[in-house]
């Protein structure tokens, strides 16, 4: 039994790696093309573009994982079926269920792989890629690491135009409204040191106190301000949700929730992270259903075509539902899990006759 497991696993993984290689090379080339447009801006050179494409590879691989599993699985199993190898296995007393378990074993490896990519490789590499790119494009004299951001807590709005490095911000506007919606204080500063204890030390400050009669303006070289954001939270704020690791995401969702901002994109990113390995697994089930659930008279080519289209449609549905969910305010865990359940459901329904 060990030998047959290994054989099936090998065939499955071979096809998977072939498909993901083709797709990753193709999409990396497209990414490279669009990065080449930026070569020549600031200090961004050809080597930086190559580096960016290499560093964003884990994210691309992760995105392509479910679809490659599906196509690879259908091709591998389709070829086994075409060569009458599956028939041979069944004839020698190996049940369909046993073959399926062996395929699922290989699928489990891929699910673990997807999990490792999502949790370890993507956050580290993606952040590195973005930072290096922004730094190179911004030029040598200013080291703008990240773009600015807006944040709000209750009636205080903060705008930071640029984050220079960890804890150093440039061009800051702070708007303090009272509960009636009247602006009470407008603080503008040239730069700020932001500590991990949420204390901001502002430099080059111009402060306007506003009353019903008018406003008075004062200029001070520096002042200390208790804010609601620490340097660590800001670091997370300036990165796209998908590039954060699970602990960072949970921490950040809590911080956003406290500040009264929308957490939906971040909690969706969290659920997507969980959903990606599960979708990969569901795709394995789906290809099983396609090989065993259909009649034997079909050729491999036909089966691959039909299976691929149905699978891709399901995958597209998965992508669409996630974003529709955000627009329609459906809880993120529902939108992230529904497609997995639907794909596995379809697979089980098709498999029920042969199992």
């Amino acid at each position, binding site marked *: 039994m060990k030998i047959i497991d290994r054989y099936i696993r090998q065939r499955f993984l071979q*096809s998977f790696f*072939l498909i993901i*290689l*083709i*797709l990753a*090379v*193709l*999409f*990396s*080339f*497209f990414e*490279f*093309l669009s990065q*080449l*447009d930026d*070569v*020549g801006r600031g200090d961004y050179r*050809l080597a930086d573009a190559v580096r960016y494409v290499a560093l964003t590879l884990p994210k691309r691989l992760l*995105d*392509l994982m479910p*679809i490659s599993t599906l*196509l690879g699985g259908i091709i591998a199993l389709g*070829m086994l079926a075409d060569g009458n190898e599956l028939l041979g296995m069944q004839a020698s007393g190996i049940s369909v269920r046993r073959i399926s378990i062996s395929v699922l074993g290989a699928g489990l490896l891929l699910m673990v792989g997807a999990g490792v990519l999502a949790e370890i490789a993507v956050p580290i590499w993606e952040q590195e890629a973005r930072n290096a790119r922004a730094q190179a494009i911004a030029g040598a004299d200013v080291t703008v690491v990240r773009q600015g951001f*807006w944040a*709000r807590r209750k009636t205080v*709005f903060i*705008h930071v135009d640029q984050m220079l490095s960890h804890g150093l911000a440039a061009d800051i*506007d702070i*708007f303090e*409204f009272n509960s009636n*919606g*009247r*602006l009470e204080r*407008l603080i503008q500063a040239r730069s700020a040191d932001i500590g991990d204890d949420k204390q901001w030390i502002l430099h080059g400050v111009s402060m*306007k106190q*506003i009353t019903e009669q*008018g*406003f008075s*303006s004062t200029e001070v070289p520096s002042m200390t301000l208790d804010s609601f954001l620490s340097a660590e939270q800001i670091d997370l704020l300036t990165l796209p949700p998908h590039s954060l690791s699970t602990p960072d995401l949970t921490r950040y969702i809590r911080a956003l929730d406290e500040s*009264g*901002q*929308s957490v*939906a*994109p971040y909690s969706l990113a969290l659920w997507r992270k969980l959903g990606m390995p599960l979708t990969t697994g569901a795709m394995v089930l789906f290809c099983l259903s396609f090989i065993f659930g259909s009649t034997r008279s079909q050729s491999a*080519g036909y089966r*691959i*075509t039909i299976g*691929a*289209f149905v699978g*891709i449609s399901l*995958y*597209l549905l998965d*992508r*669409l539902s*996630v*974003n529709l969910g*955000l*627009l329609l305010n459906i809880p993120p865990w529902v939108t992230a899990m529904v497609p997995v359940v639907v794909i596995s459901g379809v697979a089980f329904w098709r498999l029920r006759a042969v199992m």
Partner: protein
Amino acid sequence: MMILDRYIQREIAKPAVVICTILVFVFGCYIAARYLEDAVEGQLSGMVVFFLIVLRILIALEVLLPMTLYLSVIIALGRLYGDSEMMAISACGIATGRVMRSVFLMGILVGGVTACFSLHIRPWAWERFYELKARALVNFDLTRMQGGNFYEIENGDRVIFADRVDGQANYARKIFIQTRQDRELQIIFAQEARQRRDEKTGRPVLEFKDGYFYEFSTVKNQGRIMHFGTSMIRMEPRDPRRDFKIKAATTASLAGSEDPEKIAELQWRLSSPFSAVLLAPIGAALARSSPRRGKYAKMPAAVVVFAIYYNLSAVAKKWVGQGVLTTFPGVWWVQIMMAVLVGAILWRPRITIFRKA
């Protein structure tokens, strides 16, 4: 003899249809993921996202079509070798060159279609793409906003935030708007806001209730404060700032230019049909294998060849544009190298690429 040619061409065309559709679908899904994220964060409507994806697919077809042919040739001829059909063809006294001729014809056919894409459809699609995106980013729609999110519109000159938004009722609560204009900073904070269309112009207008308007000059110490019952601002769709992108320029306008970047773009467009013509025979050479070897044994090597060829072409284009390479032979040196390789394969059919020990 016509029967054999047609047979080989049909064998190549069959997988090509499937591969092309799958590549288009997968590429569409991949791109969709990106723009759909934009639809949530930003303001792109579903229809706009759909058109953007279609345009991106049209742009990508310039590369997807030659790749489709390349993979199909490898699969089709790989099967002919695997099932000993090639041996049977040789046994009938038909030279390998004859099979190669069919492959070449397919290459020229696909090359012709690719030329249409690279010379006409791709520039047109880029132009529409930039236009659509610029317009979508300038037009603001309150009903598509989400409470608790900051929206930067009009190239970041205006920032809008609302505590709560009811899209269906077209109604936002506690709305904050900051507008930066040259040296002035305007802030509006209102308890309620609604979007409607101006009867005369048909342009969108934001109407506020019960709020304050502030205007500060960033140079002089001046400012204005107003408390209003109702007020409104026009959301003028400004003329989209159109950076002239060479990618969107028509081929006719590129011809005869002295600008190295334009020359590079023109050479790229002219050379891309050759990728199909050159990749097809290489695919045929790679497909050659003895029976009982795996059908897809040489696929990884084939993908490597593809990656090297295309990435080198892209780098060559960039270098011509930057003046690192002279405009002659320009981007053509990659094509020439590839042509030499094809020539070697045709002249000495026994040479195999990536012979496995």
